[in-house]
């Protein structure tokens, strides 16, 4: 959802009303900034002067380009939005649910469902406003609390001047991004955390980590990372690194599962995990190609890249397992799918198909290490390897985006694209996200611990959360 580099970079966007928004200074600028709030989200962190102004019908803003809403875009974006829901429930829920023991599967499904539902509601309450309704470098405003001012007639900008979407589409699309990000985290402390702790943590983290990072990365032209020029087409930093770090912190603070390292803790249903991974793949096209905001060849590029990187990562992961362990596992293939999807997320709009294959393959290989060597180094029980896959895969993807966007490597960067410089910018984005999410997570968990406690009693953990926290059992003959 990001970077507008279809046009040669640096070129003066003379015709685009964005120029007005981007360049007008002082008072005017602030007035306009509110008006363009909606547009903001449409951009990643491209150069500010490339920003395209959002034109709300009601906006009192000056001479504006006539805005066109194309039904093909609406069709694609509605489809994309439901695909992101599909990624979460049932996709992510099943991917995670299959990996835990059968006594805890419902607790994981429930956590995913409840966190997603809660965040979607918080999104319309204040999230959308804080992320995208004006504001400065780090956070938005309260101007659109409870969707104030959003109507059937209000519009959100796309990357193309003069092409808009109904704002409702954008609100819905973005709400699912926020929802799935929160849900991703629960894999790290599955099988032992209190249900209430999950909810409270998610609300805090969403408010103080997700919203600011989303604003910094996607709010044009003032978002702090946006202004730096970081490329994050569909949410590698905002979603995956952000969630991966929170997951790591959570796994540390909640502590290891009873029996971890001594008893066999095996996935109870790898078939479910495979269904989940498949639905993540299918749904991710909404996530990635949907982030193009229009049904154009740009979306098709993101689409094709998402297909190829994933295929490459699945095979790469399997190959590593075959070489090292002699046997390529289905769980490995499924994990490779997710690793590839994570890694291509920031890059999918700006790299070429061969670059996508390279990114997928590299991420597939590195994430095998993420769930083995790195995990041992970290000495943490990140139950479902949220950090090893989403965190590490996100970092790999973010950095490689800075590499394969280079035209010399088949990417769609500007002619003067500098790999070194862009990788630096990307690293900055990665670093800021890690620190911000890490600190917020630490504080949030401290609060949660104080207020409701983190873990269930050992006996409840032994018996399983399904029965002890939710009063039900998943399976019965």
């Amino acid at each position: 959802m990001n970077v507008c580099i279809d046009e040669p970079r640096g070129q003066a966007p003379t015709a685009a009303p964005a120029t007005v928004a981007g360049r007008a200074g002082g008072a005017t600028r602030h007035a306009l900034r509110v008006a363009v709030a909606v547009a903001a989200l449409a951009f990643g962190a491209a150069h500010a002067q490339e920003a395209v102004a959002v034109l709300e019908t009601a906006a009192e803003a000056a001479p504006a380009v006539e805005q066109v809403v194309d039904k093909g875009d609406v069709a694609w974006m509605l489809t994309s939005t439901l695909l992101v829901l599909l990624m979460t429930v049932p996709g992510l829920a099943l991917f995670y649910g299959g990996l835990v023991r059968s006594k805890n599967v419902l607790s994981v499904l429930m956590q995913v469902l409840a966190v997603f539902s809660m965040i979607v509601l918080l999104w319309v309450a204040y999230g959308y406003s804080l992320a995208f309704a004006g504001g400065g470098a780090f956070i938005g405003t309260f101007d659109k609390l409870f969707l104030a001012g959003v109507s059937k007639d209000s519009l959100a900008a796309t990357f193309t001047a003069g092409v808009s979407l109904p704002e409702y589409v954008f609100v819905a699309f973005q709400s699912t991004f926020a929802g799935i990000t929160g849900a991703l985290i629960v894999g790290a402390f599955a099988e032992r955390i209190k249900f209430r702790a999950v909810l409270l943590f998610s609300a805090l983290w969403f408010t103080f980590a997700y919203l600011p990072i989303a604003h910094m990365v996607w709010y044009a032209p003032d978002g702090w990372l946006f202004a730096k020029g970081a490329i994050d087409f569909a949410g590698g930093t905002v979603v995956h690194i952000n969630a991966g770090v929170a997951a790591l912190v959570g796994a540390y603070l909640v502590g290891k599962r009873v029996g971890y390292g001594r008893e066999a803790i095996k996935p109870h249903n790898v078939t479910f995990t495979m269904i989940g991974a498949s639905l993540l793949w299918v749904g991710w096209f909404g996530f990635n190609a949907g982030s193009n905001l229009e049904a154009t060849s740009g979306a098709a590029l993101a689409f094709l890249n998402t297909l190829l990187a994933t295929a490459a990562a699945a095979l790469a992961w399997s190959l590593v397992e075959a070489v090292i362990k002699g046997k390529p596992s289905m769980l490995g293939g499924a994990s490779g799918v997710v690793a590839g999807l994570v890694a291509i997320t920031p890059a999918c709009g700006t790299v070429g198909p061969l670059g996508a294959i390279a990114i997928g393959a590299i991420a597939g290989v590195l994430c095998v290490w993420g769930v083995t060597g790195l995990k041992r180094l970290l000495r943490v029980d990140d139950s479902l390897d949220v950090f090893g896959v989403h965190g590490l895969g996100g970092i790999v993807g973010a950095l490689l985006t800075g590499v394969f966007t280079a035209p010399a490597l088949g990417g769609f960067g500007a002619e003067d694209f500098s790999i070194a410089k862009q990788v630096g910018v990307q690293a900055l984005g990665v670093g800021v996200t890690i620190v911000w999410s890490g600190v917020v997570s630490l504080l949030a968990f401290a609060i949660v611990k104080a207020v409701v406690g983190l873990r269930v009693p050992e006996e409840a953990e032994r018996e399983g959360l399904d029965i002890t926290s939710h009063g039900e059992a998943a399976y019965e003959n």
Partner: protein
Amino acid sequence: MKLITAIIRPFKLDEVREALSEVGVSGITVTEVKGFGRQKGHTELYRGAEYVVDFLPKLKLECAVPDALLEAALEAIQLAARTDKVGDGKIFVQALDQAIRIRTGELDEDAL
């Protein structure tokens, strides 16, 4: 009466059942079990977690037989269940004090 308990390889069930039928054993009760013994298990790997699985799937057959049938039954099982590889399993024989057919209340050998 004796109670025969046989631990066998799962895929041998049909053969053993037929062999038992032939010698006149009329009923069997079968349980899925996991066996630990000399037969080597395998290794499973789930991402970073490697587990050596020593427990192998086996079937446990229980059948109550009149004393007269015991030898024939034991032989039938042995012949049918054998593959000559480690892990073929065991047969245990225990005394059976009493047997009742629930439906009719018939007792002991009549109940089998």
